[in-house]
């Protein structure tokens, strides 16, 4: 490799030469005293053109090159590869966009040539200052952490495990399956959710690839350190008091347990024992002890009835203690799910005050065979309802509550309509809705069925405040726009899906963002909805946006795909050299850079009192370079001097 500076001019067929006279550029450079090696080619991006460039660079001892052609957004990578093949450092190259930004937009040939001349001079001035840069490679861990054991998290974990890597699945509840596993029937085809999910859960728990999945229930991630390729995560696991290795899931411990509380798995309906399964059939098939209810832990009584009832020695273990563990992973998938909007924010609907007002989640449990009524639709008084009101859009499409449409609640409402029709055929159903949203190739059928049913009435309301649920002479009634109250036996509210409960906490820990709607913010809504804005942290399921099981499964698969394609065993992580570097000798430790870095890529060394850029996280935007008051951050490939030279060249 020599030390010449080459200027390569691409005719681009005639697209460039129609407007720009390359001979004048060559002559102009000579007249300006620039000693450059000038070459023209009719189509530099063609196979023949690339070969020409590579040979010419090599044969003429060219060290640095200016390429006058199309937009660098088209072929910068192409020509950088040519540089590399010719033995040159690919970063000692600067493109001049003479096609899109000059030839195609200038009317006058002289003007275009003059403008190209300025741009070429600017590029020459700049490329002389370019530093040879090298991509860096670092070792990576190809395993992944998945937070949340619902459909999305399970799909992701299983997919990653199937590739032979380790997946660590952290679930804060004692049970896997997320929300849908608590539903008996799912729209649009009335398939039973446990029947769909249980085979997958069995794969995760006992299948061919189960050895690659570490399941940590009743566990939460409390700290993460590091970045893409190398995260160290700290996980805190609450004691279950039941040994997963010994418990056979017979449930003998449950029946004699003397302590009871409202059942959170039935959304407060019915009761559950301190020692119990979350619900019948919950997986993993293990009981757990709720210490906030247990007489032994909550009341300090010497009760050990469950232990005595257990047929396996040592399966119930009162000495179980919280565990803290660390794991190393290369990527993190967030699949923490969503929650329902709190209906008590709409007090006129009576939720929490009137006993016959239910949320959609509660009604799911009422119609589930593992729910508090074993699937029978009954009022609190134990009677079969003759009339049920279903209210759509609760807290949705409303600037005072949530302005978006969750897109799934209408289908849930029409599913209820179908199931009520099956189980209580004589019941009258009235739907109150603001909008009806049922897109999809299968999803309209339930709505059609409801709309054609003689027992179903559809009433559109404008504002949720037009609806009021009251108690009249001991009977629940619903009033629309101040009219006559319609007596009903039950009211089912279908609230908006809202972002996860611990979104803020997670985001603080992982440096990800919560979006305007309260969900975890994706990198791009259309292009990369399974990726967060932090490299190596992916999103799956309803924590990213409201959606159904189909979307959760797909997104779980997508997130796993990012892990599988980004972290490949045996391959190192390639880091672009176009990134910021702190000159630690000059850094005053003011931390301005750290406060503005959009990727939280700048850490502060408290011992040396200097900021330092994490080269994996840095995306090379250069925001910190411009912000550093001491001028002590270097923006590789976009240094101040390089840009100054470019400005000078343009204006000379």
């Amino acid at each position: 490799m020599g030390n010449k500076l080459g200027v390569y001019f691409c005719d681009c067929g005639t697209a460039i030469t129609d407007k720009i006279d390359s001979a004048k550029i060559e002559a102009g450079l000579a007249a300006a005293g620039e000693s450059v090696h000038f070459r023209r080619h009719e189509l530099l991006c063609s196979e023949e053109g690339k070969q020409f460039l590579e040979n010419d660079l090599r044969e003429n001892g060219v060290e640095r090159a200016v390429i006058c052609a199309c937009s660098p957004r088209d072929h910068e990578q192409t020509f950088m590869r040519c540089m590399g093949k010719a033995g040159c450092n690919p970063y000692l190259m600067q493109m001049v966009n003479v096609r899109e930004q000059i030839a195609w937009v200038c009317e006058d040939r002289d003007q275009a040539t003059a403008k190209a001349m300025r741009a070429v001079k600017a590029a020459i001035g700049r490329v002389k200052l370019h530093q040879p840069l090298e991509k860096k490679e670092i070792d990576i861990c190809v395993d992944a952490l998945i937070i949340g054991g619902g459909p999305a998290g399970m799909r992701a974990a299983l997919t990653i495990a199937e590739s032979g890597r380790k997946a660590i699945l952290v679930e804060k509840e004692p049970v896997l399956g997320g929300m849908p596993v608590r539903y008996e029937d799912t729209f649009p085809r009335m398939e039973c959710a446990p029947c769909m999910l249980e085979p997958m859960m069995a794969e995760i728990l006992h299948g061919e690839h189960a050895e690659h999945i570490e399941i940590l229930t009743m566990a939460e991630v409390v700290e993460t350190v590091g970045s893409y390729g190398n995260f160290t995560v700290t996980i805190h696991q609450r004691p279950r008091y039941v040994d997963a290795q010994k418990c056979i899931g017979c449930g003998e411990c449950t029946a004699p347990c003397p302590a009871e509380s409202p059942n959170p798995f039935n959304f407060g309906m019915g009761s559950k024992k301190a020692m119990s399964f979350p619900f019948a059939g919950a997986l993993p098939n293990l009981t757990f002890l709720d210490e906030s209810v247990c007489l032994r832990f909550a009341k300090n009584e010497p009760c050990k009835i469950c232990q005595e009832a257990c047929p396996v020695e040592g399966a119930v273990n009162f000495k179980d203690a919280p565990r803290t563990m660390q794991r190393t992973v290369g990527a993190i998938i967030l699949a923490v799910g969503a929650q329902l909007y709190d209906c008590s924010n709409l007090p006129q609907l009576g939720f929490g005050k009137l006993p016959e007002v239910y949320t959609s989640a509660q009604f799911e449990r009422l119609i589930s065979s593992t729910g508090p009524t074993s699937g029978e639709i009954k009022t609190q008084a134990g009677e079969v309802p003759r009339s049920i009101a279903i209210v759509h859009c609760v807290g949705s499409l409303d600037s005072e509550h949530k302005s978006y449409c969750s897109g799934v609640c209408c289908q849930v409402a029409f599913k209820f309509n179908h199931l009520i029709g099956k189980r209580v055929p004589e019941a009258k159903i009235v739907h109150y809705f603001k909008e009806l949203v049922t897109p999809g190739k299968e999803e309209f059928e339930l709505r059609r069925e409801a709309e054609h049913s003689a027992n179903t009435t559809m009433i559109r309301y404008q504002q949720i405040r037009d609806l009021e649920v009251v108690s009249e002479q001991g009977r629940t009634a619903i009033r629309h726009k101040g009219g006559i109250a319609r007596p009903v036996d039950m009211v089912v509210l279908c609230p908006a899906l809202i972002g996860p409960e611990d979104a803020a906490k997670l985001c603080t820990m992982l440096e990800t963002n919560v979006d305007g709607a309260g969900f975890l913010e994706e990198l791009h809504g259309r292009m990369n909805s399974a990726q967060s804005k932090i490299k190596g942290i992916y999103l799956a399921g309803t924590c990213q946006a409201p959606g159904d099981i189909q979307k959760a499964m797909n997104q779980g698969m997508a997130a796993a795909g990012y892990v599988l394609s980004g972290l490949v065993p045996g391959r190192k992580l390639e880091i672009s050299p176009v990134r910021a570097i702190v000159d630690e000798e000059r850094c005053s430790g003011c931390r301005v850079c750290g406060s503005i870095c959009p990727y939280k890529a700048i850490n502060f060394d408290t011992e040396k009192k200097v900021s330092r850029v994490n080269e994996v996280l840095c995306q090379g935007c250069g925001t910190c370079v411009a912000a550093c008051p001491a001028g002590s951050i270097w923006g590789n490939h976009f240094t101040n001097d390089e840009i100054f030279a470019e400005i000078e060249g343009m204006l000379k």
Partner: protein
Amino acid sequence: MSDTNSKPANGTFEPKIIGFLCNWCSYAGADKAGSQQTPQPPNVNVVRVMCSGRIDPQFVLKAFREGADGVIILACHPRDCHYKEGNYRAASRHRMLLQMLKQFGIDEARCRFDYVSAGEGERYIQLISETVESVRSLGPLQLA
């Protein structure tokens, strides 16, 4: 330094303008304008940076010192920044810069900040045309 209005008598003044464009939105918008092959004034010479957040106020001062009559900074639209928030930094730095330029006696209209998306070729042409015209009406920048 002061920016005295010294419009040439013959009215043929062609302002020299430096455009600082971010790679992902505004530079792509300028490419889009190019692909449409609609003629545009040739006065704007483009300096590409990865993000508008990289645009150091020194770049703008350097451009004026080297003889630019105007500067245009184009960023991604709010919420569209490829790097999340560099465009907001660019916007606030521009506000600060205008204060400084005023102290140097440089008319605010010589330093424009705006937003162009990757698809907005027409908007790019409109913005640079407006800037060329407004700088032209101010005449050459004369720094004392």
